[in-house]
């Protein structure tokens, strides 16, 4: 270690100075190109000339190819969500195989999807989003998994004016489109879902005694807050509640058993992942409540883990279940099953209810492109924020997909209540649209 420290330090400082004088030698990426030729830029929801420092509306569009990116966990304990991305991937492949997306400008585009892996760690998401934007130069980001992960890149993507479409989460946070106009959710708000449960209870069991088990994070807390708010002024009551932390290493068994002693007649399971079906197996035979579970675990993949204890559970359903024989004739389901299989989804993925969600995320992006006049980032967002009774993916036909900027930023706001049968679902209460109400419900 007998080197000349001073010399090295001096060399270092000199180099920094030279470096800063040269700046970063990246290939001059275009910027400040004219801000979209969208004719009605004045009254549109997003006006890039006002909202963006630098704006390149057609970045990521190269000839007849549009490059998009996504971020999801591909390894580690949350790698199950990779199934969502498989669905998105299948949508891209199937779309390309069938010729591509015909955008509003009359051209047909192939889609190229770049996938990054953040291991579900929100500390890693920002650098990967930057990689997608800076290095890959994507046009938009689609179907990023995880509430915290999407939150972590929200300021960045809104600053850079890069669309983040079909967030794979239903956190009420995504209702803040006025503040974050480049974000649009791909799932219904968890709060709206919870309000469907209480609506149904109000009709069928107005004096419901509720036992609530919720996940100890943004997702579960959205259910908890909404339930408390919705039952206010009614004769319903939450008689006992327990939270569950997926990091804790325990199961939900003790919590479920403890709730079973509460004399509740209604059990609401606000959990995701395997703990959700596992909870159903923990319900003691001495307790027979009417059980609601989160729609995030309503697919075959999740419910097959319940060992038959899923019969009779209730969910609020917004999309077709590709495994439900009653939905099998729907064109959207047919399309998914045929083209999804051709694009490489296996049988488990086709029927599982997870990949079909990712398929829908791709379809929302595709619908936006088709309905926009030009292939332009702001034009795409403005289209998605002014949908009128649109349709995409496996969303049920009864759904009124209508949006209106910050006033009504949620595409999906309707549900029906269904009960689990041996091979599918039985409708308990008809489809209800709550258009424009999601933000108010979340409070």
């Amino acid at each position: 270690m007998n080197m000349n420290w001073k010399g090295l330090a001096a060399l270092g400082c000199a180099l920094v100075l030279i470096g800063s004088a040269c700046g970063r030698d990246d290939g001059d990426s275009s910027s400040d190109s004219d801000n979209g030729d969208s004719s009605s830029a004045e009254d549109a929801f997003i006006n890039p000339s006002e909202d963006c420092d630098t704006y390149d509306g057609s970045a990521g569009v190269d000839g007849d190819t549009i490059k998009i990116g996504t971020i999801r966990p591909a390894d580690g304990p949350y790698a199950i969500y990779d199934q969502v991305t498989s669905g998105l991937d299948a949508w891209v492949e199937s779309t390309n195989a069938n010729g591509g997306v015909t955008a509003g400008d009359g051209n047909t585009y192939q889609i190229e999807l770049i996938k990054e892996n953040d291991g579900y760690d929100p500390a890693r998401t920002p650098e990967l989003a930057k990689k997608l934007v800076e290095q890959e130069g994507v046009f938009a980001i689609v179907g990023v998994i995880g509430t915290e992960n999407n939150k972590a890149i929200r300021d960045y993507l809104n600053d850079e004016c890069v669309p983040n479409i079909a967030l794979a989460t239903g956190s009420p946070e995504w209702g803040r489109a006025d503040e974050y106009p480049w974000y649009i959710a791909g799932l219904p708000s968890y709060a709206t879902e919870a309000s469907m449960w209480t609506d149904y209870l109000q009709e069928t069991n107005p004096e419901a005694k509720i036992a609530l088990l919720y996940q100890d994070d943004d997702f579960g807390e959205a259910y908890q807050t909404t339930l408390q708010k919705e039952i206010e002024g009614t004769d319903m009551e939450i008689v006992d509640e327990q939270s569950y932390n997926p990091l804790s290493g325990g199961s939900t068994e003790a919590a479920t058993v403890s709730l079973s002693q509460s004399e509740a007649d209604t059990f609401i399971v606000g959990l995701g992942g395997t703990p959700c079906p596992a909870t159903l197996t923990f319900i003691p035979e001495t307790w027979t409540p009417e059980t609601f579970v989160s729609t995030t675990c309503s697919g075959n993949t999740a419910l097959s883990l319940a060992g038959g204890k899923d019969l009779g559970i209730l969910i609020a359903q917004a999309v077709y279940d590709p495994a439900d024989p009653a939905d099998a004739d729907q064109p959207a389901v047919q399309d998914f099953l045929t083209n999804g299989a051709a694009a490489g989804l296996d049988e488990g993925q086709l029927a599982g209810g997870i990949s079909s969600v990712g398929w829908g995320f791709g379809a929302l992006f595709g619908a936006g492109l088709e309905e926009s006049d030009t292939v332009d980032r702001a034009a795409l967002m403005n289209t998605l924020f002014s949908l009128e009774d649109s349709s995409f993916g496996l969303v049920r036909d009864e759904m009124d997909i209508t949006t209106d900027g910050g006033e009504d930023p949620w595409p999906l706001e309707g549900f029906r209540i269904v009960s689990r049968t041996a091979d599918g679902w039985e409708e308990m209460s008809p489809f209800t649209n709550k258009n424009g109400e999601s933000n108010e419900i979340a409070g």
Partner: protein
Amino acid sequence: MKTLRGLGLVQTILWAVALIVVIVLPFTSAPFRVEQYITWMTIAVAAAGLNLLTGYNGQISVGHGALYGTGAYTVAILVTDAEWPLLPTVIAAAIVCFVVGVIIGLPALRIKGLYLALVTLAVATLFPLVIEQFSDLTGGSGGLTLTSEQLYRGSIRDRRVKWESPIDGLASDQWKYFIFLAISIICFVVIANLVKSRVGRSLVAIRDNETAAEVSGINVSRTKILTFGVSAAIAGIGGAMFALNKGQVNPTSFTLTLSIYLLVAVVLGGASTVIGPAIGAVIYGVFIDVISPELPESLHSATPLILGTLLVAQMLMAPSGIVGGFHDLTARISRRKQGGGKQDKNEEVTVTTHEVVAETDLETDPGGFHP
């Protein structure tokens, strides 16, 4: 003597090249890469802290991720709740972690070797749960975001902090890079001096034979506790840099996996060497951030498998790590060139500073305590 000067020259050249690379890199890399480099620095610093404890002093910690997390949360809480300016929080994080380290160090006096590894493993597993339990302070699973008031879409809003560069031509990520590089270098210089000092020699003496160290007048208990404190403080600085770089903290970032990676960085680079943890951290970073994403889709989940296999293989074949291996090599060369002559000063330094994990140790005290 000539060869030794030659070796010294080789070393100086290596250092100069490393320095040039480190300085030129942020100018030739995309901003997202620069932020990844900063992450590698935070791991390097924390691993260097861990190395002080585990490499030099022989107290195995599988829980330094928790101390890194403590540093990160200290910064986040001070910035969001107490509205501290950014950089002073690094010092606060070091102090908090020092205290926490001393507290953990007390029971570690009685719990040694594999058993200490077991306890610290439990600490690492427990840390994210503690964060969730005290969510009023820590933000629970939603974490904390370091924000400042910024103008956006016509109004002032709380948005994620930005590092405004005061130097023209230096982008904000580059500015951030050099600040953190400076902090990292300071940490490493402090460690290098500490290790070379009397204190450093007593750390190694305690590791190799606690009783002998006691007899030769070293206050073993005090030294071990203080080592835990200093090691924790440095890990805390790493965590503090992490929080400032990312602008956010979440419990999922501080799981057992992180503690394992810190340990991997130490062992890969070379335990009981000053620069080893930095090299280990960089190799690990390159593997995770640069190589792994380029692997074909079907091999993505193979990343841990590759890493695990490499780790076992390295432990069996080259347990002294990269720097240790390099030192062994240079020591052998100089010995051969001298025709098996007397030990000279340079070589002695080499041996004491890296007295590694390795040495399937017939020549050293058989009753000794080798990490």
